[in-house]
């Protein structure tokens, strides 16, 4: 069954902790419940995007650096 990870706040979504570092999670990779899979920047503050449940990342639905709304699906897990 597919599960979705949602944006906690509106803002800009980032897949990496900083431009020089690797992404928090890759498509096809396994993640644990509570894992951070990205960040949302809202008014110059950064908030983690956390997976409520563990699983395998099927697909990111938002590109790195794109705008997101609150509760917008960011990634699909199985």
């Amino acid at each position, binding site marked *: 069954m597919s599960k979705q990870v949602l944006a906690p706040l509106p*803002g800009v979504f980032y897949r990496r902790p900083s431009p020089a570092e690797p992404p928090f999670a890759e498509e096809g990779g396994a993640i644990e419940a509570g894992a951070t899979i990205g960040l949302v920047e809202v*008014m110059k*503050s950064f908030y983690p995007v956390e997976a409520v449940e563990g699983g395998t990342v099927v697909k990111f639905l938002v590109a790195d*650096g794109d*705008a997101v709304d609150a509760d917008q699906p960011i990634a699909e897990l199985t």
Partner: protein
Amino acid sequence: MPWMRTSRSPSSRDPMTIKTLFIANRGEIAVRVIRAAKALGIRTVQAASEADTDMLAARMADQVVVLGGAPAAQSYLNIPAVLDAIRSSGADAVHPGYGFLSENADFVEQVERMGVTFVGPTAETIRKMGDKSAARAEAIAAGVPVVPGSTGDVADAQEAQAVAREIGYPVMIKARAGGGGRGIRIAGSADELSSLIPQAKAEARAAFGDDALYLERYIPRARHVEVQVLGDGERVLHLFERECSLQRKRQKVWEEAPAAALPPTTREALCESAVALATRVGYRGAGTLEYLYDEGTGAFFFIEMNTRIQVEHPVTEMITGIDLVQAQLRIAGGEKLWLSQRDIQAKGHAIEVRINAENPDRMFMPSPGTVSALTVPHEDVARFDTMLFAGYKVVPFYDSLIGKLIVYGRDRADALVRLEAALDGLQIEGIATTRSLHKALLGAPDVRAGNVHTTWLEDWMKDRASDPK
């Protein structure tokens, strides 16, 4: 403008050479720039991201050009997109506001290469004053005091101790690659210094990939004071000083003019030092020289220059009666300074408080969303520089500053009374704001007495969190 206390500008001025002004910014400062441009009969073109096409500045401008997507990297910081928009708009001048590209020398060079006027200093000045060690060297050459420190990097604990003996304890250990307060340690003695140096080196290497360290004397309980200057490339005048000691995470939250703690002779020396440094670099436009003031010894030290208009410029406008944004435009248009230092008199006291879309009760969590209702204080009570209107949706992509509430009184006590009335008269529904923080600050005896320093606010918040009344 109704909020300007007086207008000392002579009634005659040179004809404005700028016909169309491009505003490469957003929010309240874009609104402020459009007001100034309109007062001078200049046509305005407002830049906007896709998220900002409905903002107040876009509604006020004669024309709007969309730069790109909502994230600043795709719009307000996207130099090729901004240059294209300037070109297509036919503007002959660009106002950068503050933040974004306002202190980007490469951008300034590209604007000027297009034959368009940049409202600000030259690219060379921006580059020089944006480089901390170059700015420090200019200050020393101009005879302006700087925070005593090592002339370059310190290699190890032994060298650090030798330097610290000269500059005096306590010292700050700073990472060359750090910034915004990151990687700073304070050592009160030689022993402490020798144990902190290896730690600081390892941490700087891990955090910045560069383990170079330097030392500066640490000034506890310093006040942040700054001097406003205007230059025309040849002559520089000061418009007195501001005090901005109330800061959270190195962001100013409350600013005043004048700095009431300064004795008159210190004020005079401070303002003269700012003129000396700005004159030395041939400064053009509006600029601010920032200093630390050590109340214990009465000494002040230059820390950096901001080569742009600042958020807190209105408090200076209130006490001098000079419209700084109009002055920027007139200077950019080629006018030589129309004032002498004698023409600039400070009168009364002004306070500005920053209204941010943040929730002070929830660790200043950002609070974007729609403003369902808005009531602003009467203009006799306060000036409110803002981009808000009822129904406006505060977007999450940029700075949280949504307005600046500015009061003017005959003295500081009078300004505090007016600030209370102004805060009571400001109602913003639908989003959380920092208005309640300012109400609480108004009740703090240290704030009322002006007995504050740059870490006072964070200490006060910590005390309140552990001991709620």
